[in-house]
């Protein structure tokens, strides 16, 4: 089979539930969602109004699930959704939305707009209207094992490099370890220090952990393109590996949508709860800190600020942990305005950074983060999502800004008390 409008339309019919109906019924078209969305605020273009992105889904709801909608479409008073309309909405749904969920926080009637964008993507993708870049990333994930095409070999190379760097062994496929650690492609390729940092921190803290050769990729392209069938396949790999190794917990790495995919969507995708817990690396590090198992020495005294990755903070609930960790290792930590659950998106999550068609608008939208950053006066930015890191680094370059970007796990590992890590 291949993509078709019929499959897309049917997918839209499948995803509509009571929350979606309550959202469409409640919307009074006040436009406040636009004021919360960086794609609107940095362009002034009303077509980026978040609720407007959902017009095709609204049509399906009206014509298939409401009495008056059914009657009016039968009488020819209103027209059902067409393939052309769905195609026209693709840039709105994929290029100018990262599923950051800021709109869902401000809607006065309580609409969870990001929830609905996630659902409309099911129809978009099944109809063949997902952007080429995202389609290819997804195809690579399934066919090769990761969206950037990284296979086990590449990982093993990095493992060896980090083992040499740290002088520690990085466990792989250890049965009954407490924690199974996952990685994102971005980290494996661009920020391999993350792996070394894990090794050093876990050594000091005495954490029993392992990698899995069968499931090392946490990034979930299925979530980003919006195809639950594919997202399920990706999650299942992890679930099977975790249950095979009989680990107590799986660690989601510094990647936003990986956490959303594994921690919050996963059990619903596979249709059952897990036999293990899922924690974000920041949650684990904070827990270890609280238990006194991480001992740090010295602090970074350059002024720095923190970018909350949307899927981890606002859509994930990991908000205070990075701040407590920064309290240990940063002398001059400055919060951005709107820090915490209302922080602004980097502009590249949810598939946008994998979508060349979206490059121009992504750079435009970055201006929001730029303004936030400049207002703090800091030239160092810490974050906890590898995709945010790349996107921010690209944005800083585009705007010619001299700011260093560091991952939080690395920062913690760099300040571990030396004696404990040999």
């Amino acid at each position: 089979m291949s993509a078709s409008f019929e499959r897309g339309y049917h997918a839209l019919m499948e995803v509509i539930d009571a929350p979606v109906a309550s959202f469409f019924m409640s919307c009074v078209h006040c436009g406040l969602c636009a004021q919360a969305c960086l794609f609107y605020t940095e362009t002034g273009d009303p077509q980026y109004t978040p609720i407007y992105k959902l017009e095709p889904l609204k049509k399906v709801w009206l014509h298939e699930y409401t009495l008056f909608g059914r009657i009016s479409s039968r009488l020819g008073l209103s027209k059902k959704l067409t393939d052309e309309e769905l195609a026209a909405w693709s840039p709105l749904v994929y290029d100018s939305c990262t599923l950051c969920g800021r709109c869902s926080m401000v809607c006065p009637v309580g609409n969870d707009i990001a929830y609905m964008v996630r659902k409309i993507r099911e129809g978009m993708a099944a109809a063949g209207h997902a952007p080429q870049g995202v389609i290819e990333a997804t195809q690579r994930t399934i066919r090769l094992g990761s969206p950037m095409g990284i296979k086990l070999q590449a990982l093993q190379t990095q493992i060896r490099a980090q083992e040499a760097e740290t002088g520690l062994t990085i466990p792989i496929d250890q049965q009954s370890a407490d924690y199974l650690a996952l990685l994102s492609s971005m980290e494996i390729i661009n920020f391999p220090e993350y792996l070394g940092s894990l090794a050093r921190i876990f050594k000091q803290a005495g954490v029993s952990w392992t990698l899995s050769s069968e499931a090392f990729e946490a990034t979930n392209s299925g979530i980003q393109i919006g195809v639950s069938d594919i997202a399920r396949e990706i999650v299942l790999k992890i679930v099977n590996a975790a249950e095979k190794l009989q680990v107590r917990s799986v660690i989601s790495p510094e990647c936003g949508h990986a956490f959303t995919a594994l921690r919050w969507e996963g059990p619903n995708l596979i249709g059952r709860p897990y036999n293990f817990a899922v924690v974000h690396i920041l949650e684990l590090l904070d827990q270890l800190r609280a238990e006194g198992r991480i001992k740090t020495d010295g602090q970074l005294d350059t002024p720095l600020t923190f970018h909350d990755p949307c899927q981890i903070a606002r859509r994930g609930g990991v908000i205070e942990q990075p701040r407590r960790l920064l309290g240990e290792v940063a002398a001059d930590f400055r919060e951005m305005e709107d820090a915490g659950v209302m922080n602004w998106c980097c502009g590249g999550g949810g598939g946008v950074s994998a979508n060349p068609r979206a490059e121009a608008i992504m750079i435009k939208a970055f201006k929001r983060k730029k303004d936030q950053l400049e207002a703090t006066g800091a030239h160092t930015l810490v974050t906890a999502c590898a995709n945010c890191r790349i996107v921010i680094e690209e944005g800083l370059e585009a705007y010619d800004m001299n700011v260093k970007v560091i991952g939080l796990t690395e920062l913690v590992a760099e300040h571990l008390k030396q004696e404990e890590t040999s």
Partner: protein
Amino acid sequence: MWMIWKSLMSETDLLLWTRGPGFQWALGLFLLGMALRGFELFSLGRRRDLAAPRAHSPGSGWRTIFTRSLPKWSTWRRTPATPLIAYGFHIGFFATLFLFPPHIQLALNIFGFSWPGLPSPLIDALALLTLLAVAGLAAGRLLDPVKRLISGFDDYAVLVLSALPLLTGYFAFHHQILSYTLMLALHILSAELLLALMPFTSLVHFATLLVARWYNGDIAGRKGVAS
């Protein structure tokens, strides 16, 4: 001339109709509509969330029902006009509706209990302010590019529907424009029209926002976020 009048409905007959069968029909249509939309909504259900919720969370569905009434600080900072005018409208509308003694009498008659009201001159001023807010809402829809793009027939129609009881009530109280009997009849008729059409327009948000906010708060609350 008065023979022609009498052949149509007289003003008094119109008033008596609005106070009698008109009220029954409006209330009936309202209940019919609410039942219909309620079933439309809840029949779609929501799959149970199999992901383990966080043990302790600052957020919940019930909490968001209340807290979502307060705009987030960053919204205020960016665009105070929209929430201000909208609040001005809602507060003014509800005040004139629930705190005007003749309306409280209506409630006493239907429900059997009443509450203290405000002096009529104050209600009068509030009605004018509310009408001003309606004008502000209409202007917003026409002038702001975001609102203009996403607004449709329904959005403008409900502004008219909401303004009519305010206008007719104001003129009735002041015995202006038309005879009191006719003005009162039109006032009651416009209120009945509003009541009857509420479930079938975006005005149904008066009830569905409780549901939407609850879902929003619940989804976020399970993840440990107070939305």
